[in-house]
């Protein structure tokens, strides 16, 4: 397999990460813009790396755990870039890039699973999977934003500002960004889950409707709806809502790992 695109992706992401960190430390706009540019280039290279890997294995990117992780990393980068452009806020890049890099490296350094191609085919299934992973990526982003919120809030309350607080996004912007991200995740997971049920309906003879994955997915959906509802109320707005968001993502991680690998009959790596 050609390693050009994975190498280009890693280089672009690493440089983007370095520039975002530098931007956080220095506040120079040009540095931040270059960070964004390199993230965009990394996204393109990552796309071609995914395409190449899929072609090499003659299957879809989410065929195995590593492919799913790489796709997750790509969608996380894409969601972050969208959020950065929408909110015009680059300070978060330094915190998100390590996650993207870890998922990409973990996916591309490990050998591919020698699993038989999935029985599932077709656009409905592809959209179901892609939207679900997009939702997880958006939830991951809201998780990172909530962590930053809690850290910054703690620094502001303890009056220990240091150098970084002046560069971080304002607390209320972090809340808004987190809500936007959750909204993207909710819409994606709602459509993705609906498409999943449509697809299962077509193959009802082969798959069970009573899968623990469905239960956990519905729980995730409800928890994030709850987060969006509570984040605007007096008792919950601010740090409490952020903690709830972090808790919700832990359930997502549970769904992505334990439920998929050990409990689900119909889900493997997404």
């Amino acid at each position, binding site marked *: 397999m050609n390693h050009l695109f994975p190498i280009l992706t890693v280089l672009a992401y690493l440089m983007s990460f370095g520039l975002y960190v530098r931007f956080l430390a220095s506040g*120079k706009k040009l540095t931040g813009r270059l960070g964004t540019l390199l993230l965009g280039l990394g996204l393109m290279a990552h796309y071609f790396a995914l395409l190449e890997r899929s072609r090499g294995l003659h299957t879809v990117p989410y065929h195995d755990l590593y492919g799913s992780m790489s796709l997750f990393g790509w969608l996380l980068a894409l969601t972050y870039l969208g959020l950065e452009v929408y909110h015009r806020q680059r300070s978060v890049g330094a915190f998100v890039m390590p996650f993207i890099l870890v998922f990409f490296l973990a996916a591309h350094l490990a050998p591919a699973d020698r699993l038989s191609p999935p029985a599932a085919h077709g656009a409905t299934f592809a959209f179901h999977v892609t939207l679900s992973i997009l939702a997880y990526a958006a939830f991951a982003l809201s998780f990172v934003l909530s962590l930053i919120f809690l850290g910054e809030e703690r620094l502001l309350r303890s009056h220990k500002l240091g150098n970084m607080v002046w560069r971080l996004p304002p607390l209320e912007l972090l809340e808004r960004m987190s809500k936007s991200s959750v909204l993207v995740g909710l819409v994606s997971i709602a459509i993705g889950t609906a498409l999943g049920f449509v697809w299962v309906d077509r193959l009802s003879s082969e798959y069970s409707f009573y899968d623990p994955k469905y239960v956990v997915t519905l729980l995730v959906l409800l928890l994030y709806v709850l987060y969006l509802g509570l984040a605007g109320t007096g008792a919950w707005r601010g740090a409490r809502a952020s903690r709830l968001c972090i808790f919700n993502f832990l359930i997502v991680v549970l769904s992505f790992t334990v439920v998929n690998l050990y409990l689900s009959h119909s889900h493997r790596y997404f």
Partner: protein
Amino acid sequence: MEIVLVGLNHRTAPVEVRERVSFTAEQARRAAEELRARGILEETLVLSTCNRSEVYGVPPESSHECAPGLSTFLSEFHSVRADILSVSLYHHYDHEAVRHLFRVSAGLDSMMLGEAEILGQVREAYRFAHEQGATGPVLNRLFQGALEVGKRVRTETELGTRPMSVASAGVKLAERIFGKLSERRALVLGAGTISEQVVSQLRDRGIAQLHVMNRSRDRADELARQFGGKVVGWGEWETALQSPDVVVSSVSADEPVLRRDIVERAMAARGNRALFLMDLGVPRNIDPSVGELYNVYVYNTDDLSEIVRQNRNARESEVPRAQGIVDEHVTKFLSWQASVELVGLVDALRVKMREERASFIRSRMEPMKHLTETDRAQVEKLMDEMLEKLLVGPAERLRGEKELRRKIQNVEALRDLFLSNREKP
């Protein structure tokens, strides 16, 4: 093409002298006209702010010679006795004058290190002098360089990024919580000077609504009128605390004015929306336990002073970087200045050598009677070619090679080496 600077600033002159030597725009225009008419300066630019009055110029003769005339002019122009003025004035010439101006526009020479206003003041002074036709090629280049230095220092270093007063530190902190303050509301408790400073900062950031609460209604009315706010009756906490995002308190009181129970009720009424409280009173106006309430951020004078102290240290640590930018641009300007002067020097050398050649040939060929007119013309042509070869080559290199120009910055030495005083361009 020398540069002279005569001026005074907050370090060399007390405010009583500075205020007498400051220039209005009209005075700056008149001073430039008179300096040119008296033959003291060919190009003039007056930079006058509350902390400095400086006259930059290009004299027709040596800059050192024109400086006393310039000092006398300032003394006469502002009707200040020369002996009073002379102790406050500083004189800088050529590269020292260039360095001084670049440091000024970088904010390195300001009373508050890295202050942003000075760059705008330099820009305005240059725009005005340029419009009046008081500047020429040298000052145009010099001030364009100064503006570039100021811009670079502000974008490439953190010299001017952090708040340096308690009032601005408080407002910046509010921005850390709410972001832009243009859609936010503020309540000011007490109508003293410190409140005024904070309100002024909030107004600069376009705060949407301002309420003033003070024991003395008249003073509250005055502050509200001054900044376009509304007055709230003293003690009407339920109304007053329901809408604001920022509260600034500087009341003179022995006991805390904002008790925990008052803020607790207010937070319940406002749905726990974040509240930033700036307690600038001594003794403190806000019960310290208020800071424990959910979504309430309390900063007192000591907290804000500590932030200012940290920021001052951070700014000072940026001075070497800013100084590096200044040095880079000083070298750049001097290199440009040298290149312009060198071109003039080469032209003067060419004229001188042609004259030398003519008299040399006359004297040396006189005894050589056997040479025909054609031979003489041939010799003259050969000498001309040799001189051109000796001069034109280096001249072209000087025009083309920046590094060479940088090395030959002290053109005076070259001038003195080749030309007598009379022949200098």
